[in-house]
């Protein structure tokens, strides 16, 4: 765990980082993001003491790193920098083996590790080990950069906009590779970027910074759904959530005032309610608003005795979804069961809304077309 305690950095009169308090958990990817000059890179570089804090303390596993030997500290933290962090005068193998060399590993252990890491990043060792960085493409170079950071098997890896200089396709590919690698390795990764898509794609938690302060440090989902701050919402982009279907929940697409009735209504009353609200079905709830079932106009009309009550005829065996079910799941459910509507309930089974095909068209139409 990395813990910042009231960490500040001042250069003369300017304060670039103002009293940070963050805790980064083990095995998570924490993304620092914000406009340029927000202090995100400064924050990152304080973790390996390339920049010394002006005040406050930083702990790694409860050890105050400001009291540790910086050289030793850095050798135990992986570091991937922007663009060309590779040494052009060293071969790929020498670059990857750099920290092992600094740590005086025996030659055969070092070579074995270099080969293992090249395999890990998908570059055959026999082909690449003795080549120089300028013989590689940008994507390959940055793979070597990642491999080099992993060389001494550090628990923590710092990445400073590692993919920003790559073309969009290669960038997406390396993001995927990093994500997959992390599923295997479970490192604690602190990742600086200015690209919100990258942050959402990689971050377990995202820390949004501005003017040296943290505005919100939260999961991508919470940032999208509950931005704490006008700036956060603006920075993420108001429409961002609608581009991430997995984050769209039932509550975002339902109509909140479905037409409902209690089971003790007569069929005549039911027909009256339907026609006055221009709907062709009613949701049946009890007096505590708990979902019971549904009844359609067709079912009501097919009964000759209109004095009967709804409780005798309504459909009890119906599907419903919860408020935080995702849109993708809901659409799948509706398609598979060939139903045109589905009620939405909370954890207690109380009716909160209704999703119908036409409500979907309305809501999505608004978001994707109406706000252009």
């Amino acid at each position, binding site marked *: 765990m990395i813990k910042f305690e009231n960490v500040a950095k001042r250069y003369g009169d300017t304060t670039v980082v103002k009293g940070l308090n963050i805790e980064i958990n083990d095995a998570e990817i924490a993304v620092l993001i914000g406009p340029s000059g927000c202090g995100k890179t400064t924050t990152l570089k304080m973790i390996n003491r390339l920049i010394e804090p002006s005040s406050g303390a930083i702990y790694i596993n409860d050890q105050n790193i400001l009291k540790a030997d910086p*050289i030793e500290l850095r050798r135990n933290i992986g570091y991937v920098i922007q663009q*060309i962090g590779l*040494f052009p*005068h060293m071969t790929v193998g020498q670059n990857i083996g750099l920290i092992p060399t600094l740590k005086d590993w025996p030659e055969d252990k070092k070579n074995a590790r270099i080969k293992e890491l090249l395999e890990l990043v998908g570059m055959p060792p026999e082909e690449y080990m003795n080549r*120089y960085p300028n*013989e590689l493409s940008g994507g390959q170079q940055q793979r070597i950069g990642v491999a080099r950071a992993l060389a001494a098997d550090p628990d923590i890896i710092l990445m400073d906009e590692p993919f920003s200089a790559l073309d969009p396709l290669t960038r997406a590919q390396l993001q995927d590779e990093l994500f997959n690698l992390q599923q295997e390795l479970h490192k604690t990764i602190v990742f600086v970027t200015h690209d919100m898509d990258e942050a959402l794609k990689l971050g377990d938690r995202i820390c949004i910074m501005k003017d040296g302060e943290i505005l919100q440090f939260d999961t991508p989902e919470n940032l999208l759904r509950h931005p704490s701050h006008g700036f956060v919402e603006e920075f993420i982009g108001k429409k961002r959530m609608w581009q991430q279907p997995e984050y769209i929940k039932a509550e975002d697409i339902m109509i909140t005032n479905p037409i409902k009735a209690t089971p003790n209504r007569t069929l005549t009353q039911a027909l009256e309610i339907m026609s006055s609200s221009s709907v062709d079905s009613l949701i049946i709830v009890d007096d505590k608003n708990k979902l019971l079932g549904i009844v359609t106009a067709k079912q009501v009309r097919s009964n000759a005795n209109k004095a009967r009550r709804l409780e005798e005829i309504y459909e009890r065996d119906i599907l419903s979804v919860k408020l935080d079910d995702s849109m993708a799941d809901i659409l799948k459910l509706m398609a598979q069961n060939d139903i045109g509507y589905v009620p939405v309930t909370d954890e207690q089974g109380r009716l909160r809304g209704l999703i119908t095909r036409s409500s979907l068209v309305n809501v999505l139409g608004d978001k994707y077309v109406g706000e252009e």
Partner: protein
Amino acid sequence: MDTIMEYIMFMIDRSDQIFTLTWQHIYLTALAVAIAIAIGVPAGILITRVNKLSSVVIGIANAIQAVPSLALLGFLIPFLGIGTVPSIVMVFLYSLLPIIKNTYTGLSNVDSAMIEAGRGMGMTDGQLMRMVQLPLALPVIMAGVRISAVTGVGLTTLAALIGAGGLGQFIYRGISMVNNQMIVAGAIPAMILALLVDFALGLVEKAVTPKGLKQTNGKEVEA
């Protein structure tokens, strides 16, 4: 009238002497440049570390360079007398500037990203210098050494004036005796020597350029 044949005959006649003087010339130049490297490179490293010193040190080296060579030699005689020592000191002083300046330029032009990467991986200052900065600056430093050595060969001809020998001896004796053959017998080997030194150090410069920094023509780079 002299013919080319007569010049050649003269040189063959005096070949033993020319040979001795050439060796003397090489010895004087090499020693002076070697001392200049031994002092200039560390000085260059020092001023990249302590940046405040850089303008002072380069300023002094520049000032020395500006003094006319004959005047510098004259200035050294009261302190060091005549002979080998003052002539080596003169060539050494002239060689300092290109070496210090190129060391400084070479080191300060190393990409700051490289330095940050090295430091971020836990290199000490010494390791950073040895493993990253010097190898990357070496081609520029060697270019400075090359300039020093070539001008050094020229300057060493002045050594004969104060009895230190070298190919200048033939040139000055020839001038005072109005003997063109003798002048040329000194001048031609000095010229050839300068060109050879330039060529040889050019090769060294190429050899010390890290392989990864050379152009990789025709090598395919895939995505």
